């Protein structure tokens, strides 16, 4: 039972010693150490989560919240309504595909640039890191507007340079999704890059030199020596990216003007917002929230399973 699901990177070098005799004493100490965070999370996360499940079983709108109407228990009706909505399923599919593109994109760009950063001298590397940190630091709302401004049909610098004034990047479905994905990758690759860079720096040069002395090519060294060592880090970066990109809201909402023409650029979180929260149908919104959490859990579990099957050990 003590196998970790996904340990942080450096775990691989140092395993905390296993001493069953200490377990009991450890348990008590752990309880004390965990107490402050535990209380906070139980009160502000677990309990509201429990209430969320409750709300999802009621006909709960703004009049119910403000006490103007009595509460009516409706069981699974909110869930039935949701699953019966064909739009929900099509939005779900585009959310998964869109999130997949963003996750893969940030991982590729982030890892690629991390490798690049280890192979250049200090000044170019510093420039790259500064730019990346800037992108990371930009609030989502600001970043979305800046990108929208860059790609503006008439005044945008991109159209000016490409000589295609008047072309709208946000009209066609795939072009709009692509633009948003580019913005998302822009602001989320730095996390991957910084993590992977630290991971690569962390590999002792002896290991690599030893491999090269054995006659391994650079590619072989990369895939057979470096990659396995980086894998735990990659797994973490992937899980985090999945969680973030699946829950994307601001970028889609701002850049496609609330979900694109006739809602063809909706993703789950924006759909939830328009279907439930903007119209103040909190019961339905809570149901979608519960479904989304369960879905994300499933995706994460499946991902971790495949990782473990492919030989990854914590």
């Amino acid at each position: 039972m003590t196998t970790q699901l996904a340990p942080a990177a450096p775990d691989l070098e140092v395993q905390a010693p296993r001493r069953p005799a200490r377990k009991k004493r450890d348990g008590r100490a752990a309880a004390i150490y965990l107490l402050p965070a535990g209380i906070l999370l139980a009160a502000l996360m677990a309990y509201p989560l429990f209430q969320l499940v409750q709300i999802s079983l009621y006909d709960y709108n703004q009049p119910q919240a403000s006490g103007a109407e009595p509460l009516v228990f409706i069981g699974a009706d909110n869930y039935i309504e949701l699953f019966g909505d064909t739009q929900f399923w099509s939005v779900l599919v585009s959310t998964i595909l869109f999130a997949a593109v963003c996750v893969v994109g940030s991982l590729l760009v982030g890892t690629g640039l991390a490798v690049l950063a280890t192979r250049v001298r200090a000044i170019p590397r510093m420039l790259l890191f500064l730019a990346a940190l800037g992108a990371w630091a930009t609030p989502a709302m600001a970043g979305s507007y800046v990108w929208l401004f860059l790609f503006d049909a008439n005044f945008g610098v991109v159209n000016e340079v490409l000589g295609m004034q008047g072309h709208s990047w946000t009209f066609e479905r795939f072009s709009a999704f692509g633009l948003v994905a580019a913005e998302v990758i822009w602001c989320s690759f730095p996390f991957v890059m910084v993590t992977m860079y630290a991971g690569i720096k962390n590999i002792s040069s002896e290991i690599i030199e030893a491999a090269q002395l054995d006659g391994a090519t650079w590619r072989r060294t990369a895939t057979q020596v470096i990659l396995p060592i980086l894998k735990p880090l990659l797994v973490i970066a992937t899980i985090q990216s999945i969680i973030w990109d699946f829950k994307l809201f601001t970028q889609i909402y701002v850049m496609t003007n609330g979900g694109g023409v006739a809602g063809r650029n909706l993703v789950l979180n924006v759909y939830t917002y328009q279907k439930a929260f903007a119209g103040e149908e909190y019961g339905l919104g809570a149901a979608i929230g519960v479904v989304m959490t369960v879905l994300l859990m499933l995706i994460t579990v499946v991902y971790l399973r495949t990782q473990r099957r492919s030989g990854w050990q914590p």
Partner: protein
Amino acid sequence: MATVSMPLRKKRRSPGRLVAEIVCCVIAAMVAFPLYWMVLAAFKPAGEIQSATPWTFAPSLESFERVLGSNGFGRYFLNSTIVAICVVALSMLLSFLSAIALTRFRFKGRTVLLVMLLVAQMVPVEALTIPLFFMVQQVGTSVPAFGLNQLAPLVLVNLAFSLPFAIWMLRGFVAAVPAELEEAAALDGASRMRFTWQVLFPLVAPGLVATSVLAFIHAWNDFLFAQTLIFSDVDNRVLPQAMRVFYKPEELDWGGIMAGATLMTIPVLIFFIFVQRHLASGISGAVKG
């Protein structure tokens, strides 16, 4: 960060490196371009904003004046800073203790707790605003300082929502401290408390700083909780609420938006630059130590 370079390549001067460096600089410029454009648009005078000229000869502060001149900007800036700093400080403390418990102690249910930390990040926050609203309202009837329209509950809520990720990240730093150190300390008769604060804390400190930046961003950018919990007290509102005036999809005030975005980004960027050394090398440093 400026001192490290790939040890493997130290001696040989590869012809590919120059190419790599050029590519690196070009990519850095591309990544930085949207930011440059943001700052540029903030400084452009009103008439020039919608032109694609990549410079301006008549930089103007009028957009900044419009943003800064809006009612109570200084107050909101201060409130946001207070909230962010409190969240960062508390998040460092709580995530440090929790990360120790989750990496260095063996106990039943540890895996469950770890999974719960992940699950906690999966809940769409919009869905939780209603329960949180009523909870804060309830608390406020007995402890007014933690009630609605106060900054304290905002700190706690932002803390709760940035904590799971902070703990998750920090586990790596804590686990990296060699177990021999702990054993040595135990042999010396140091108590667990002493070991935690006198040995672990200094070693994990860079990691703490690094993870705190994420808590900072979280608290600094939060609009949803602020809007929900601080809905009727003008004096306790925070920066993103004030910025919202300029983010109107109806009539885009590009100059105002870009000036506001610049002002919102600068503190985060300063914080980042301050901690980036630890962010990038903290993990490896901790492991080697």
